[in-house]
């Protein structure tokens, strides 16, 4: 069985053409990127605002409770409801993107909110006290300090989207999920398994890239990547988010499809 999967993965014909792995991979990345961008544009500013003002925290709780809704159900329900109202390509792309965006919002919102809400109150107070405007406090102090949790949220959301986009092939979305769904329908296990391997590798690869990005943009003062002086760390690092919180599932929102 393994040899058949390997054969399928390595044969040139499975990679070529509009139904090949190469094209499907790009499609999958494209859907995922669009989704994460849209969801981020909606959820991150909102999360920052909730964290900064302390108002509207119920929205984070509400978004969090979305986790209990099965993503597969949401996908089918929205496809059934929106699909007939649309024409052509968009009939199956739009419902999927809508669901993916909805599912990506909770981790993004929670990450941005928790990041800002967790900023050391003394640092925020000092920022006001030295004459920063609200905008300066947000951009110069709160956002940089919130970055670790905010980016953890982006990573969780991205994984969620990549996974759910795979399932979305069941409502005719393109991307790598096609191999899994079509392989299943045709009883071609080597195609299914090969596609599954590519999806898994894609998820791992994207997460690794995001982790590296996170390490690059988060200030070493926050990430604890200052091992040279670790012996000197003091009691004053009160609850600052550290790099060890970067793995998925910390922000209190685990999203998975």
């Amino acid at each position, binding site marked *: 069985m393994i040899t058949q999967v390997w054969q399928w993965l390595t044969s040139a014909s499975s990679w070529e053409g509009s139904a090949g792995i190469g094209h499907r991979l790009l499609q999958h990345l494209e859907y995922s990127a669009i989704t994460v961008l849209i969801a981020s544009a909606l959820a991150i500013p909102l999360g920052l605002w909730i964290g900064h003002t302390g108002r509207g925290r119920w929205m984070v709780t509400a978004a969090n409770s979305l986790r209990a809704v*099965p993503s*597969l159900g949401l996908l*089918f*329900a929205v496809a059934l409801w929106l699909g007939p109202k649309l024409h052509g390509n968009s009939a199956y792309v739009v419902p999927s993107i809508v669901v993916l965006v909805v599912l990506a919002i909770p981790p993004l919102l929670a990450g941005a909110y928790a990041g800002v809400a967790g900023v050391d109150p003394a640092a925020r107070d000092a920022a006001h006290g030295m004459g920063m405007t609200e905008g300066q406090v947000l951009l110069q102090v709160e956002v940089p300090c919130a970055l670790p949790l905010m980016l953890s949220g982006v990573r969780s959301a991205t994984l969620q989207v990549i996974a759910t986009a795979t*399932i979305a092939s069941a409502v005719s979305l393109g991307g790598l999920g096609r191999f*899994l769904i079509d392989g299943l329908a045709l009883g071609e296990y080597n195609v299914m*398994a090969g596609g*599954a391997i590519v999806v898994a590798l894609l998820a791992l690869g994207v997460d690794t890239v995001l982790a590296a990005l996170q390490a690059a943009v988060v200030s070493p003062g926050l990430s604890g990547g200052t091992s040279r002086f670790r012996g000197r760390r003091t009691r004053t690092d009160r609850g600052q988010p550290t790099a060890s919180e970067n793995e*998925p599932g910390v922000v209190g929102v*685990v999203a998975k499809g």
Partner: protein
Amino acid sequence: MSFVSANWGDIVHRALLHAWLAGLPLFLGLLISLPVGWLAQRSRVLRPFLVVGSGLLYTIPSLALFILMPLIIGTKILDPLNVIIAMTIYTIALLVRSVSDALAAVPADVRQAATAMGYTPARRFLAVDLPLAVPVLAAGLRVAAVSNVSIVSVASLVGISQLGFYLTDGYERTYGTEIGVGIVACVVLALIFDLTIVLLARVLTPWQRVNAA
């Protein structure tokens, strides 16, 4: 409503299957995560490998993992064991971190006092560390439980029977009511899991209630 009453027996049956597929892995995952998380918390060297490693497992999309299980453990694609094991893997991926964080949160002075009283390490773990770790552990379990219930429904795409069936079947028959019933049933099941864990944690930590009062 007529769909529910007409299919009540079937719904209950699938709900029980669903609970089994989501719940058993929760239990197995906790059982495995305890020693692994303990190890991660004890060893500075092992910690990054265990925590990051289990985190990586979590990145694998569920449908992909369901499909790959036969390749790894040699089962048939329709075998519920695939789902049980895949879900156990996800549970471990979430809980190793929770366990190690929960144990790390046990105050050092409490631990030292227990050692000074003459607890052996193993007994201290069971009598002191573990009870004090319950609140953080319960939080991790709640996340895992709700996530498990949602993910299990995906297994209906590979033909494994549980509540997810109403989602796929409803879609194929373009029957919105059936999808709605599936969603509601899943949410209710997730809430039941969540509530059970909350109640269990409360029973296990009577001292927390005293503080809250």
